[in-house]
């Protein structure tokens, strides 16, 4: 018996709406609207005691952006933040990749245990773990230094690199490595010609999951870094809480958001061109 396609279409559309509406609504209210408010705030004047000056009195202004462009320190801090994020990402990748391979190649039961160990740190409070690092780094004379910031960043974000890599590597067909070996590929050729290119989607999503949060992270540099280790995250936080210059803080976070979007866009383009797995 032919099924009326318009009825099924309609019910499918209804289901789609019912399923997507709540998260979409949540994102609109708690993400999109605040982001727009933030963007709007960046074109306003600061209020006398924080907040924003009334729109009727001072109108809109590009003062915050002019301020950022005038002082090279902001570009410098942005660049430094990118450097820290990049370095953190690279170190995380170098640590996580062999570990993910090790986990994938261990027997099934141990594998689950290892994955549990990777996510276990999340069971205790983030700040407590950072304070623990202060206790570890203090006696080593590394506390309040750029090294401490990198160590902390790597520590905090390592699981976000391991998990996507593990998920990716686990899907690789072991027959491919055997085929490569059979066709004359030695250990290194097998890695660079088969494992690595097939793992690129995992590498890219892991890198995004590390790189982007590190850019905005302020707790780690605040607690572990020295006075000179100001990053974008700290800078933005300071504008809102210490300097009471909301428009400048809003403008800085908008600049950071655009920079992150540029990176995310780049990684999306790279993934599309690479991964047909």
């Amino acid at each position, binding site marked *: 018996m032919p099924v009326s396609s318009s009825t099924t279409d309609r019910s499918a559309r209804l289901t789609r709406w019912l399923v997507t509406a709540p998260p979409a609504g949540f994102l609109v209210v708690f993400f999109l609207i605040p982001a727009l408010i933030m963007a709007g705030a960046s074109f306003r004047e600061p209020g006398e005691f924080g907040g924003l000056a009334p729109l009727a009195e001072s109108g809109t202004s590009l003062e915050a952006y002019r301020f950022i462009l005038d002082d090279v320190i902001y570009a410098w801090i942005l660049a430094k933040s990118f450097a820290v994020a990049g370095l953190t990402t690279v170190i995380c990748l170098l640590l996580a990749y062999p570990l993910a391979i090790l986990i994938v190649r261990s027997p099934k039961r141990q594998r689950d245990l290892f994955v549990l160990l990777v996510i276990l740190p999340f069971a205790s409070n983030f700040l407590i773990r950072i304070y623990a690092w202060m206790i570890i780094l203090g006696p080593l004379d590394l506390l309040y230094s750029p090294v401490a910031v990198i160590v902390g960043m790597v520590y905090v974000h390592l699981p976000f690199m391991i998990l996507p890599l593990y998920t990716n590597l686990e899907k690789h067909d072991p*027959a491919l490595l055997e*085929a490569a070996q*059979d*066709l004359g590929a030695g250990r290194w050729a097998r890695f660079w010609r088969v494992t690595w290119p097939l793992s690129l989607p995992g590498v890219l999503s892991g890198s995004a999951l590390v790189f982007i949060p590190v850019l905005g992270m302020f707790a780690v540099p605040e607690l572990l870094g020295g006075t000179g280790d100001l990053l974008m995250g700290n800078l933005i936080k300071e504008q809102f809480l210490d300097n009471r210059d909301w428009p400048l803080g809003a403008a800085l976070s908008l600049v950071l958001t655009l920079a992150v979007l540029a990176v995310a866009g780049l990684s999306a383009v790279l993934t599309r061109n690479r991964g047909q797995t």
Partner: protein
Amino acid sequence: MALLEIRSITRRFGKLEAVKNVSLDVESGEFFTLLGPSGCGKTTILRMIAGFDQPDEGGLYLDGQPLADIPPERRPVHTVFQSYALFPHLTVSGNIAFPLEMAGRSRDEIRRRTGEVLALVHLEDKGDAFPHELSGGQKQRVALARGLVNKPRLLLLDEPLGALDAKLRERMQGELIALQREVGVTFVFVTHAQQEALALSHRIGVMNEGRIEQLDVPEALYCTPKSRFVADFIGTINLISAEVLDASRHGLRLDAASLGEITAPPLAQAVAGTRGTLAIRPEHLRISAYAKHIGLKNHFSGTVGEYLYRGDVTVYRVRLDNGLLLEALATNAGPGRARFHEIGDRVSVEWRHDAGVFLDH
């Protein structure tokens, strides 16, 4: 000297002996098949030839050189895997170029050779396609091309046609024979499909429980199996228990419990009193309407129990009057007549005195 010599290899996995004291030679240019049910050890032997597994005892020699210390990547032996194992991130050309790149061939040579094998497997226009864009038969051809492109001394094929549907499988069998003849590379083929083995191979080693039961050319395996296992595994066959009454170089007189006295071709080691089995192919049995038999040495009457119509032939299951069930095959060559006997028809079944083979174990 044979191209590949396998000398008394044994391979154990824990308590299980997967391969038991197997020796065999594969000649250069040969299409050699290891045939057997799953778990018989044929794939283990293939993996030992490729280098992914090592025998616990015995050794393998290629061109007279021991293979023991040569890792898979340095053996001039390539494999076509059952799952094809094509690299999903490389195009068809990239897959085929892989072994050439590993061997350090020049860019020009890689391009030329890749083009040549693509033409060989009729995929000239698919060079830039990715594996996931290909059909099963095309993937199969890419895997073959990749295995052949660097001209290995041996190409190992692990049930390569297993994933294809029946019609495509038949066509690929034809292509495989033509390809092997054209490139002259020695093939070692592993399969559990006996018809495929018969159709493709120069020689077949039939394996059972880790041993080679019989190693012979296809016709010999089919016509003169040396054991019940081989007789039963290859094709269909009627097995009749019997005891030798009288053996001469002209033939055997047998006492088949249910049939009385029958005759069979000679068997050197058979003497009066030897117990065994007469194995006889359905196509060697002649079935005719009751009492219309042509007077062959062994003839019995019975009733058609059921039949399987296969188009070109019909297989009849005939219950003889003394209780024995035999399968007889009749070709349907008569114009306009698809079948000749119906269920319940009284028929005569007969066979020549030199048909079948007596197996003394």
